[in-house]
């Protein structure tokens, strides 16, 4: 069969391969090349070597580095809060209580709403609260920071909770039973059985929250737009503003994007390796 099928490349694979080349492969290769060039459109690129990369880190008093620092802080805080809260909710929702399904439905829903809309919903709420203190979210960077953390928790807790619920339900019941017969306390069961057994879910959830937080763009743009000044700009927004905010900086934007890509790839790789090794065999 393989032999006959082989002749059908044009029918089965070609449409996707062409689209993939136009939308991803060619722009990716061009992007790598353009990061070493000065250009305003892709047809007038002039090779400048590493100049863009040096500028990426030095212009605007290292705005890129402060965006990186803001992104890292935000990512660490939201990965921790989201996963802890989602796991706690999953524990509460796997006790066979009434209404479990309804709660699941409600908690998961914010995940389906798009980032721009989410950003404006929370801008209204947070500015509404801050109005009583006669201030707004774009007055202090810490307001924007915690605003983003709250927004991200609201969006992702339900999603991660669903994955943790699936993980908890996969734990064989006799394991729990054996432990309680042996006289294990609920906290011992939690730390010695439940948590080690849901490590695969932890891997997935950490990975998803990590990459989603690190690459955040829409929510950042809608909630604070990076303000006050550029103090709540995350990496993706900083790259966008470098590209489209200022003429002549397209190359610098592209260099930042390459650095961003390398960081995302490295995080994905290291994180998957690190948590995979903590998983226990089922």
């Amino acid at each position, binding site marked *: 069969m393989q032999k006959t099928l082989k002749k059908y490349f044009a029918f089965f694979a070609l449409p996707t391969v062409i689209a993939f080349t136009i939308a991803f492969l060619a722009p990716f290769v061009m992007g790598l090349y353009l990061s070493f060039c000065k250009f305003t459109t892709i047809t007038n690129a002039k090779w400048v070597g590493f100049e863009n990369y040096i500028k990426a880190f030095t212009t605007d008093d290292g705005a890129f580095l402060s965006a990186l620092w803001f992104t890292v802080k935000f990512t660490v805080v939201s990965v921790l809060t989201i996963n802890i809260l989602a796991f706690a909710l999953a524990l509460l929702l796997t*006790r066979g209580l009434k209404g479990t399904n309804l709660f699941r439905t409600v908690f998961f829903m914010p995940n389906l709403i798009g980032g721009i*809309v989410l950003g404006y919903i929370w801008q209204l709420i947070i500015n509404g609260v801050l109005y009583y203190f006669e201030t707004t979210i774009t007055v202090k960077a810490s307001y924007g920071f915690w605003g983003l953390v709250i927004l991200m928790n609201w969006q992702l807790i339900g999603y991660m909770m669903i994955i943790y619920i699936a993980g908890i339900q996969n734990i064989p019941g006799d394991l729990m039973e054996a432990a309680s017969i042996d006289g294990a306390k609920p906290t011992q069961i939690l730390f010695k059985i439940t948590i080690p057994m849901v490590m695969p879910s932890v891997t997935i959830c950490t990975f998803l929250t990590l990459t989603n937080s690190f690459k955040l763009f829409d929510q950042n743009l809608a909630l604070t737009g990076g303000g006050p000044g550029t103090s709540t700009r995350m990496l993706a927004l900083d790259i966008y503003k470098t590209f489209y905010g200022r003429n002549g900086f397209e190359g610098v934007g592209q260099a930042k994007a390459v650095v961003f890509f390398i960081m995302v790839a490295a995080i994905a790789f290291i994180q998957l390796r690190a948590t995979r090794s903590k998983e226990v065999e089922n």
Partner: protein
Amino acid sequence: MAAKKKTANIAIFIILFALALLFLYPIFVVLMNSFKSKLYIATQPFAFPSLLPDGNNAATFVGFTNYINGIVKTNFMKAFGYSAFITVFSVGLIVLFTSMTAWYITRVKSRITSTLYYLFVFSMIVPFQMVMFSMSKVASMLHLDNPVGILFLYLGFGSGLSVFMFSGFVKSIPLDIEEAATIDGCNPIQIFFRIVFPILKPTAITVAILNAMWVWNDYLLPLLVIGNDYKTIPVAVQGVLTGSYGSKDMGALMAMLVISIIPIIIFYLSCQKHIIKGVVAGAVKG
């Protein structure tokens, strides 16, 4: 012991119930404000719109004024049409073409197919910012900067995850069925559409849901590629406050937020089971 457990359960139920209200509250506040005069949204966002004047304060309830303003200002009906068209057709294209591709590159073993597979997987970790500039330039050079052309970009950019998910499932289908069909005289096209694709249906639903959520909510790609002439819903919503429609109108923004959430909630409530299952399957395999 049993009584103790019961009180604990009641306490947990109350906590969960309070949390559920807290989760719904932001949406409720937006809904409430969408009926309030735009002058009062910033100053009293948590108050109900009042029907009657109260002392020195005028009535804040304005009926559907914000909705009418918002729909007119943002040309919302058009935005809704573009979003619906682009989502439906790009998801259709993605499901059809990536399932065909995934079957082909899993069944035909060669250097080309395995290279393709790794390229598709690789594309999943590349952030959009890496390709956004060159992609939007290539798109305008090839005249893909219209609602039909963008379908092609979505097929290309969405193919990584979709091919990956489909090939994971194709690997688990025993070859025997396809071989039997070959002996019976079916050609590969018949085999795919009559035998393989029906087996792939559960994965196809997952792929469709994941991509629909992505395309419907996507902001940057439609903004950069077709944002000047064709505004999808997220682009239109973002435009309400950024001044491209005149003065900042909080009332119109609230109304637009409500109408953009409604289709999502209807979609969610009508096929909730599939959505939750699909999203989990996508996460576990991705």
